[in-house]
């Protein structure tokens, strides 16, 4: 059976999470088709054709897919997906938005955020904020799942030579429209792709104090994340939230600064290779998962750390 993977892209290149999702498809086994739906997305389709292990690329180049809105994407994926054994998408806010919609149109269930493939119909996924790992077997004729990037090493973006086929758009129902966007601007690496992540919590006290973390991050080539409390308090924007209901990261080094270590936060970072916690409360639960804990006032420790790395 063949597998349809929905590529995530910016119309010129496919993003990293797509490469992890193709890796999950390879673990299932079977021919992999990548769908690139967008507007003026020929270069993304070209890039998709080079992805390791991809046999075919389908391109739906139409105004209906410019913003990958769930209504249009759901219709398209359900229509094209009928002929496949599996449909996979990255577990990003885009994939999570349209894939359940496509699954319901196909009258099948979906499995969210798989982290491993046991067999073609059996997958593992975290539940209860990562406090348990479920092994789930599905009897659905078409197996639909989102893929958590940290569960699969990415395939190479190069080396493939897939054929490219154009597919036509499905007429848009016109019930939803893009209105506007406020995108985070940052020269730092993307949170989910960085090898070092430094996150700040409520202990940072305000947004200005995050400058300390940005300075340290720039010295280390790191990304900066945050706890929910720091986002809720308005210190930093929502795209920086790490956790059960935010982003999932697993860098080589994760530094938690002024973060207590609630289970919802741990759910987003406890698969990091090395965890450092800097907290003035020696009883803070974050120390139970930290490889290196420093009990200190962050306002002294962070500038010192910055001067010494």
């Amino acid at each position, binding site marked *: 059976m063949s597998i349809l993977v929905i590529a995530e892209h910016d119309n010129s290149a496919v993003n990293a999470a797509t490469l992890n999702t193709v890796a999950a498809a390879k673990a299932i086994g079977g021919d992999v088709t990548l769908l690139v739906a967008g507007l003026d997305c020929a270069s993304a389709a070209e890039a998709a054709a080079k992805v390791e292990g991809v046999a075919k690329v389908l391109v739906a180049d139409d105004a209906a897919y410019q913003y990958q809105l769930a209504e249009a994407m759901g219709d398209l994926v359900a229509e094209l997906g009928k002929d496949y054994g599996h449909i996979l998408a990255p577990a990003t806010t885009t994939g999570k938005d349209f894939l359940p919609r496509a699954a319901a149109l196909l009258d099948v269930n979906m499995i969210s955020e798989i982290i491993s493939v046991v067999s073609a119909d059996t997958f593992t996924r975290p539940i209860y904020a990562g406090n348990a790992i479920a092994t789930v077997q599905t*009897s659905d004729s078409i197996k639909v799942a989102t893929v958590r990037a940290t569960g699969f090493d990415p395939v190479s973006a190069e080396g493939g030579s897939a054929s490219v086929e154009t597919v036509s758009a499905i007429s848009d129902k016109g019930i939803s429209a893009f209105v506007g966007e406020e995108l985070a601007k940052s020269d730092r690496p993307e949170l989910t792709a960085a090898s070092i992540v430094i996150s700040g919590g409520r202990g940072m006290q305000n947004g200005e104090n995050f400058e300390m973390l940005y300075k340290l991050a720039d010295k280390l080539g790191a990304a900066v994340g945050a706890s929910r409390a720091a986002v809720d308090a308005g210190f930093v924007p929502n795209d920086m939230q790490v956790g059960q209901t935010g982003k999932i990261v697993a860098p080589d080094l994760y530094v938690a600064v002024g973060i207590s270590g609630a289970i919802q936060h741990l759910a987003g970072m406890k698969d990091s290779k090395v965890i450092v916690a800097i907290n003035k409360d020696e009883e803070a639960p974050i120390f139970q998962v930290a490889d290196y804990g420093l009990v200190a006032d962050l306002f002294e420790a962070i500038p010192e750390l910055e001067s010494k790395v």
Partner: protein
Amino acid sequence: MLTSLLKIHLIDGESMKILVAVKRVIDYNVKVRVKADNTDVDLANVKMAMNPFCEIAVEEAVRLKEKGVATEIVVVSIGPKVAQEQIRTSLALGADRGILVETEEKLESLTVAKILKAIVDKEQPQLVILGKQSIDNDNNQTGQMLGALTGMAQGTFASEVVVEGDKVNVTREIDSGLRTVGLTLPAIVTSDLRLNEPRYASLPNIMKAKRKPLEVVTTSDLGVEVKSTQTLVKVTPPAERSAGIKVASVDELVEKLKNEAKVL
């Protein structure tokens, strides 16, 4: 006051009904444990509560009613008899009436969405608000599936909801920031954490909620067939991380990260 009058006018003087779906789940403060036989997690004697995202969904509906945008709030929960507690809580927060679809079975998202579709057909709400995610199964699917089944547009992971005439603008929390979409009503919204801060129910409102109507129906009353396509093969604890060491100084931390962990 003027703006609320205006809003009622904009929806053509029609009444606007909001349907909110609330789920009974484990309390978010509880750290759940896996059963020794690895069949599931252990929920015996564990504190249960309304899913936090559903509380946010109820709060948003109540605020829309307070603004004069909505005229009636119906809350639905699918679950065991005790899920009436979460419906009563919603009624105490300001919802007008409740529906319990009583079932002892653990339902998959597609079935939940089909049940909600049956309720939507009956109630004809202009807006359906759900949580973005249940904190037990962490699925994040039901609202989107309901969108597919009803043909309604969806605004998922909402941090702002503005109803204007026959449209709703939903600002969504996305990986790269915020995005606003304009949807034609009736539509579906799923709540994210920043949509609002839910209020606490006051004692008088808790008392009042006891007298608000709560209808109990079954899946067969609604004509929905409950079928399952997923088997929970096993549930295991995650790889445990053990606590490492405490370092005494920033110097020691830097030394360890360079020479022991080799990550700097």
